[in-house]
């Protein structure tokens, strides 16, 4: 368990550090891409991705920093793409909202709410057809479940018994619109549980708990050939898009945030490591190694060249 918890901590630390550095450097205007920050949801990304095997595939939304790093660990590519450089996999064609690294199992993320969900379902159909044992996980916000295509996709996946994990990262808001102004029902998971799939819902920021629940869920899926719907609550620390806080805007309160901050996933996991007997120095060592790694990636990305202009026309068609 100790080893596992260190691994989970390292991954969350990488995500948190990467985003702190985005906050730090964003004003220099080198990263010309809108940032939908993941701060507050690290436990979901890391817990779920850690439960998946390397060969498994994931899809996401514009809010994908955490899942991209949790799945691929590829911090160099991550920052190269944020800076839009030639050294990035996408050479700056994707940016923060459209990350894609198929070799690392990150199959793409979309800026149109809910639109990656059916693609994930089709990807899992292909895997089932090929009998390659791969699972596909698709991450989306609670707002995405307002879209018709979410229900269409859930229905198809349940009907076809596909190995797909639907992960709803629920922060209660779609931009600034609260659930109460978007949903004509009390409980999403009640409705989803009427479908032929497994539903696991938990109000936790403990990455180890999320990791274990996901593992349990995957076990259920393999026993029954039914999809899995995971629902986790979290609190988005920063504004919807951008690197700042927005508690002065009036749609939510700082008090609420401070309450969530007490059980911040990164902090929680750190405390767990301490309680398990790992001393503060060891943890600080882990953290400084990660910080250094992140800083190196940023330096590399800044120094890298942009791609040629004629790259513009590359990759539209084969």
């Amino acid at each position, binding site marked *: 368990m100790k080893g596992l918890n260190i691994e989970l901590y390292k991954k969350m630390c990488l995500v948190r550090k990467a985003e702190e550095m985005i906050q730090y450097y964003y004003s220099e205007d080198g990263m010309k891409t809108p940032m939908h920050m993941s701060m507050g949801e690290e436990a979901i990304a890391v817990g779920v991705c850690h439960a998946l095997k390397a060969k498994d595939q994931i899809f996401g939304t514009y809010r994908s920093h955490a899942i991209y790093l949790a799945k691929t660990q590829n911090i160099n590519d991550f920052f190269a793409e944020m800076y839009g450089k030639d050294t990035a996999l*996408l050479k700056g064609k994707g940016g923060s909202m459209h990350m894609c690294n198929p070799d690392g199992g990150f199959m793409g993320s979309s800026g149109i709410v809910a639109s990656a969900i059916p693609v994930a379902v089709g990807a899992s159909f292909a895997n089932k*057809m090929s009998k390659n044992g791969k699972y*596909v996980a698709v991450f989306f916000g609670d707002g995405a479940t307002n879209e018709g295509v979410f229900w269409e996709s859930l*229905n198809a996946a349940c009907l076809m018994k596909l190995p797909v994990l639907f992960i709803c990262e629920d922060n209660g808001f779609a931009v600034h619109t609260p659930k109460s102004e978007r949903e004509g029902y009390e409980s999403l998971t009640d409705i989803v549980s009427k479908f032929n799939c497994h539903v696991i819902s938990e109000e936790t920021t403990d990455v180890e708990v999320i990791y274990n629940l996901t593992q349990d869920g995957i076990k259920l899926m393999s026993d029954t050939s039914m999809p899995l719907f995971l629902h986790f609550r979290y609190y988005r620390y920063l504004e919807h898009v951008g690197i700042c806080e927005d508690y002065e805007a009036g749609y939510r309160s700082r008090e609420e945030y401070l309450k969530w901050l007490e059980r911040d996933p990164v902090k929680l996991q750190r405390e767990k490591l301490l309680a398990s007997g790992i001393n503060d120095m060891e943890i600080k060592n882990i953290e400084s190694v990660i910080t250094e790694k992140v800083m190196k990636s940023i330096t590399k990305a800044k120094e890298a060249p942009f791609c040629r202009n004629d790259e513009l026309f590359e*990759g539209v068609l084969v």
Partner: protein
Amino acid sequence: MRSITYCDALNEAIAQEMERDSSVFIYGLGVPDHKRIFGSTNGLVERFGKERCFDTPLSEDAMTGFGLGAAINGKRPIHVHIRADFLLLAMNQLANMVSSYRYFSGGKLKVPMVIRVIIGRGWGQGHQHSKSMYSIFAHIPGLKVVLPTTPYDAKGMLISAIRDDNPVIFFEHRWLYWQAGEVPEKPYTVPIGPANITRKGKDITIVSTSWMNVEALKAAEILARNGVDVEIVDVRTIAPFEDDLIVESVLKTGHCIIADNDWVECGFSAEAAARIYDKCFGRMKSPIERVGFAFTPCPTARHLENAFYPNAITIIRAIEEKLGLEPTDLSGEEFYSHENRFKGPF
């Protein structure tokens, strides 16, 4: 060579490709039902099983994304819609996802998917079951858009589309389904891109799409008796749109009519006209004329429907006007009529 229908040519192309490549599968509303998409999916479920030939929920949007997901994971899906109008429910996936997935994967992922769509006039089908709209898709970079006219092209282009690593939207006019023509039994491909000269002539060029090729040919036959020699270019592919043959033909004849199986306004005919003006500027004997659907939603009453759709007579009159000819007496002519052919229900 044997002669088979357009519908059978499509069916043969799919069956042969499914036989050849186990990653090909076909799906969509009604694909394995007893009507079999007007017969074009006959025998597939029996031969290849429900795994590779299946029906879907009424979820055009999701099932399009589904095809994309399967395609980027190495399969070759063929998604079928019995009406182009239903594609609009999948517009988000088509325009925001399917078309650009290769680009935003940094060229890493291929999107080998085919979307078969049936267009065409039916039997009082009305404004929600008769659209063509292919130019809308050709407007979007990353989608290939083809519309074969002959049975030979139907088979060859569908095989090309299935083997293509890009998304191809494949428009099939309902009335072409029973047109027969020579089609080789063995699999073969007709390249996506180039147009085809279906009738040689020296006096005027008709650039036509899909069913309008049939009408153009009829018009040409009638006018030939009056000494007018019409050249017909079947466009076949509107994205990527290769205009060489069209330009060559217009430079030869000096006159051009574009007969499109769609609305004229902001449609494919505008793109074609712009290209022709660009490349034939100052070398034409008359301005380009465009023929297409009336700019209204499609009505159902037969006389209004007849007024909505252009046909061979529309083309004949346009040519006469352009060349300054007296109107031909058409009273003894037999034109294509679906009165005797088409009793519904589609």
